[in-house]
């Protein structure tokens, strides 16, 4: 199970990076980055998984005494929660800049933005 999600995560990262490298349209690049971002989250979550264990929430099913033997690693989950929120902020920023570029240049094709090219 953990290998499936690990492989899915790696493949998503590769798909996302391929899309970001080959597409010239800014919106498609933003979508590609989101896909790669999701892949990184999947890999992180998969690394924190321990076979045969359950979610890191203590209740009747997982008493405090047995917690250390019964739960998976909570740290990657906390990290991914942070990463998702920051990823959303980055996506929103990219969309805002893409909108602004479209408003000023009338195009989303990245090869047409030549101001910083030397």
């Amino acid at each position, binding site marked *: 199970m*953990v*290998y499936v999600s*690990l*492989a899915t995560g*790696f493949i998503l*990262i*590769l798909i996302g*990076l*391929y899309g970001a*490298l*080959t597409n010239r349209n800014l919106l498609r690049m933003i979508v590609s980055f989101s896909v790669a971002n999701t892949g990184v989250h999947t890999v992180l979550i998969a*690394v924190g*998984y*321990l*076979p045969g264990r359950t*979610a*890191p*929430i*203590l*209740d009747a099913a997982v008493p*405090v005494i047995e*917690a*250390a033997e019964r*739960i998976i*690693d*909570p*740290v990657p*989950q*906390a990290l991914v*929660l*942070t990463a*998702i*929120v*920051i990823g*959303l*902020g*980055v996506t*929103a*920023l990219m*969309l*805002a*800049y893409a*909108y*602004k570029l479209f*408003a000023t240049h009338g195009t989303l094709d990245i090869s047409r933005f030549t101001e910083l090219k030397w």
Partner: protein
Amino acid sequence: MIRRVVAVVLLAGLGMVFAGLFVGYSPDAVLNLTADYYARNTAADTGAANIVTAIIVTYRGLDTLGEVTVLFLTAAVVALVLRRDSSRGNPAAADHRPVGELLQTGTRLLVPLIMLAAAYVFINGHLTPGGGFQGGAIAASAVLLMLLTDPMRRFSHRLISRVESTAGVVYVAIGVLGLALAGGFLDNRILPLGAFGELFSAGAIPVIYSLIGLKVGAEFSSMMANLSETEDT
């Protein structure tokens, strides 16, 4: 064409690295030291049943404050970048096709329920999966639904920023109170820990997470309102 080949070659290299990681990976059998500490001591230290919440709000509370700050900066920069020129005025609102009856009625029914679910998720963050960030995102999804129903709808930016800044200030104030009354900045033991597993337990965690929920919901809503308002310029 050459661009595509270069991309494939680069990604093939990265794929080899990933394949090496994948083949060499084997899941741990026991928790590492940090995770083991959290598993053994969370209940006694913080009183929170959800260990992920305890890590985010208490153990690594300062990081979460930084994260919320990053989100605030993002919302502020989005608002700055998308700031409308007041000279252009308000264009006509008539050129939008009316949305369907189903969406309109569904929105009226669902928005209060979604808000309720959001409040439930962030108040119960210390007991069940969920918390402030998730609840805030759910609350913002209600705002998104309203924007889908009526793209010309205008939200009060003053109200959104009031909610956002009040939540932020109280969050930091609770953190400073922890410095004065308990063990350190953002320590949740300024309130009694209560009975383990109850709604009113885990000290200040439900309060802090509710504030984070309001703040995150307000920030996401302001981002979406700003992005939506660009449509008519």
